[in-house]
């Protein structure tokens, strides 16, 4: 079954992302499944950047290290990645030595030179794109449609030049006799969706009825801002770039108090600055959704890399105690659904909800046959008739009080200080006690809303993970299956509060192995505290790169052999 891994690498500014974007789209439209991850540095030009693009006949859930095709927009790409090309792989572009090993075939192609002949080296990326398409034996028709779409507004000449570049790339490949070397099966007309995590988080907000998004730009969360901004005019969203993250979260809280569904997004450093606002949302029982797109720290760390280092931080963030939801969607499809659910639950319980994303989820594109959005936005009905004066924080048995918005019949009073049922600040410590109990008792109800982790039993071991690693866990499982190992998976998307009943499940798991993109194993710690079980076997990656299938497979084998 066709399943190829390709890498397109170059310097920032050379158009790697354009190649990746174009290829992913064309391949998806041509009926194949694509999985593409982006690797880039915190700079705009130069340095090294690459896309790892996998294409195949079946849905793909992770990227592989071993490359079938390596496209070098510059020589550095060759040097850095040539060792990843598997025997019989093809390497082309700016290469160093024409022959390498016995089987790897290396072809020197001067993308920029070809492009210059077309009038501008900017077309180099289309030459490369054409070459890849030819190797896969893809007819250029879909590509031409796409060029029209992508460059149409720049004029027919640009479109034509790009087309030419594409053709030129294909031609060169044909001349090398490589055409259709990695053939894909014939065109499958099923429409297929290609979605990244950031797009999904933005789309989720849109579908959840979020009409207010305030944020301060921060990689890797900025894509959410861009997505929602691109839809703002069409759907009437208020999108505000705040002066800092403190303003961003306080704006979201203000908008929610006033009646909007409101969200903010950031990365760890910005989330630090939002901690105080998180507590404000909790104390005033104003629902908001906060996305923390994780990246490696501490501090500024590695702005463009991936990590899962913020789990325990967001669970405990802000002083003293209050209930909150923490979710970590496993892929773009779940991300859309999670945002809708987060809004529904945040409003139902009048608490903040945090969604943990990461650079890997944010930037990676997945393709789907069916992109299923099952969640529906639901707003708790505003209470019909409330006695006057209105008690915003009436002590109801479940801790959830009737929530109204200002501007109607009743006055709505909210306070960050401890307050009485009306919302007015109080120094009465009996009321304080009742209010803290009111807030905290929601936690148990919230727990009942939380879904059990995704579970596949497996007798030889169980991989435990959370959030964006789901796909690679599944791929690794398959890989090990081929090697005769029955590996189970227990994957958490709902992280706080944890659902009941985990102890029983976890106590019975054969050889749990916790897999996380952090140093200490935060899921393991969380589960230990909850279940009093130890999770000594851990696979932790913290260099900023995501797990790739082969690497994780090796690690699992290693861990299981000790």
């Amino acid at each position, binding site marked *: 079954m066709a399943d190829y891994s390709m890498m397109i690498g170059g310097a920032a500014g050379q158009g790697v992302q354009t190649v990746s974007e174009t290829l992913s789209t064309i391949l998806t439209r041509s009926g194949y499944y694509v999985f593409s991850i982006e690797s880039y540095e915190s700079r705009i030009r130069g340095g090294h950047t690459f896309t790892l693009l996998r294409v195949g006949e079946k849905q793909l859930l992770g990227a592989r290290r071993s490359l079938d095709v390596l496209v070098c927009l510059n020589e550095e790409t060759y040097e850095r990645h040539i060792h990843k090309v598997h025997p019989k792989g093809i390497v082309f572009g700016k290469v160093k030595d024409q022959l390498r090993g016995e089987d790897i075939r290396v072809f020197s192609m001067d993308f920029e030179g070809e492009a210059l002949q077309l009038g501008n080296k900017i077309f180099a990326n289309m030459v490369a794109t054409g070459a890849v398409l030819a190797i896969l034996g893809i007819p250029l028709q879909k590509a031409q449609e796409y060029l029209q779409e992508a460059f149409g507004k720049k004029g027919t000449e640009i479109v034509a030049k790009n087309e030419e570049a594409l053709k030129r790339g294909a031609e060169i490949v044909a001349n090398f006799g490589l055409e259709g070397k990695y053939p894909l099966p014939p065109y499958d007309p099923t429409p297929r969706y290609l979605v990244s995590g950031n797009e999904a988080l933005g789309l989720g907000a849109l579908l959840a009825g979020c*009409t207010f998004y*305030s944020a301060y730009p921060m990689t890797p969360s900025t894509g959410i801002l861009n997505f929602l901004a691109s839809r703002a005019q069409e759907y009437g969203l208020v999108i505000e770039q705040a002066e800092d993250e*403190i303003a961003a979260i306080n704006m979201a809280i203000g908008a929610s108090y006033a009646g909007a569904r409101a969200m903010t997004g950031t990365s760890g450093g910005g989330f630090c600055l939002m901690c105080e606002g998180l507590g404000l949302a909790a104390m005033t029982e104003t629902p908001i959704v906060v996305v923390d797109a994780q990246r490696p720290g501490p501090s500024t760390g590695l702005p463009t890399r991936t990590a899962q280092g913020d789990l325990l931080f967001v669970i405990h963030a802000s002083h003293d105690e209050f209930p909150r939801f923490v979710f970590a969607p496993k892929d773009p499809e779940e991300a859309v659904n999670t945002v809708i659910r987060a809004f529904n639950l945040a409003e139902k319980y009048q608490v903040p909800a945090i969604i943990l994303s990461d650079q890997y989820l944010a930037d990676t594109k997945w393709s789907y046959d069916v992109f299923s959005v099952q969640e529906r936005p639901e707003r708790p009905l505003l209470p019909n008739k409330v006695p006057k004066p209105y008690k915003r924080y009436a002590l109801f048995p479940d801790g959830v009080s009737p929530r109204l918005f200002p501007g109607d019949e009743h006055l*709505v*009073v909210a306070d960050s200080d401890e307050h009485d049922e009306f919302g007015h600040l109080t120094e009465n410590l009996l009321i304080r006690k009742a209010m803290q109990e009111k807030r905290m008792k929601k936690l148990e109800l919230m727990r009942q809303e939380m879904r059990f982790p995704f579970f596949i039993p497996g007798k030889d071991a169980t991989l435990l993970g959370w959030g964006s690693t789901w796909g690679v866990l599944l791929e690794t499982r398959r890989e090990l299956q081929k090697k005769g190992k029955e590996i189970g998976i227990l994957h958490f998307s709902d992280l706080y509060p944890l659902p009941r009943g985990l102890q029983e499940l976890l106590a019975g798991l054969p050889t749990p192995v916790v897999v996380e993109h952090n140093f200490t194993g935060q899921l393991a710690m969380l589960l230990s505290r909850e279940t009093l079980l130890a999770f000594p076997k851990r696979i932790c990656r913290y260099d900023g790169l995501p797990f790739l299938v082969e690497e994780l497979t090796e690690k699992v084998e290693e861990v299981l052999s000790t």
Partner: protein
Amino acid sequence: MTRDFDNPQVEIAWCPGCGNFGILRALKETLEELGYKPQQVVLVSGIGQAAKTPHYLKANVFNGLHGRSIPVAFAIKATRPELCVIAESGDGCMYGEGGNHFLHAIRRNPDITVLVHNNQVYGLTKGQASPTSEEGFTTKAQPWGNLAHPLNPLSLAISQGASFVARAFAGDIEGLKGILKRAITFRGFALVDILQPCVTFNRVNTYSWYQERVYYLGDDHNPHDQIAAFERSLEWGNRIPLGVFYMNPKPTYEEKIRERTLRQRNVFDTEVFTTILQKELSRFL
């Protein structure tokens, strides 16, 4: 006598004689006289003595974090432009912890009123120097006397072309009311810096200290002249001008986004949801 905005249920926790009482009264009367109903008004505050004000009248209240009233007020106004939104807090809250929001709100020009109870001290935390404290002001935290130059909020707002900039004095309720009326009815970001004696912690800038110095800008002052406004805003010492220093009417944030926000769709309606879902998904094909 005001009625609608009185809130007899809540006990006022200020010191007897505090300048805040005058501001509270002036605000209640102003809102009443402008014909507002409490339901139409949202008072947003931070933390501090001044920030307690919203609890002491009848209105919608959002008493948030120290320093963060302005972003909350901004978002409430953007979400519900029909409401009268007032951010009200102390000098420490607005110009210290909240200085950045103050600065950037001016740039957005939301149609909110910002009332600063400027007692030139941190009242609630027991008397440290605030951003507007005089140089040399001694406190337990600054026994050697405040080393920093006081912030001039009026000059700052005028320097950024804020749409409405005024100063008032809590000791002259009628004068204060007059300015509040103009500020609240003004369309755009309106700052009123209100000189407010703190009888407990500020023994320098007392009622009489202010009374001896304050005077109202006369007709000779043209509030549309930015340079003139700036020049007058620098006056501080033996004579302290009150009144409207600067007016610079321009489109508000809400006006700029009005047309766009009319396009909001009710996704809670299944049909609308499905339509949007289909349309959006097709964009990912």
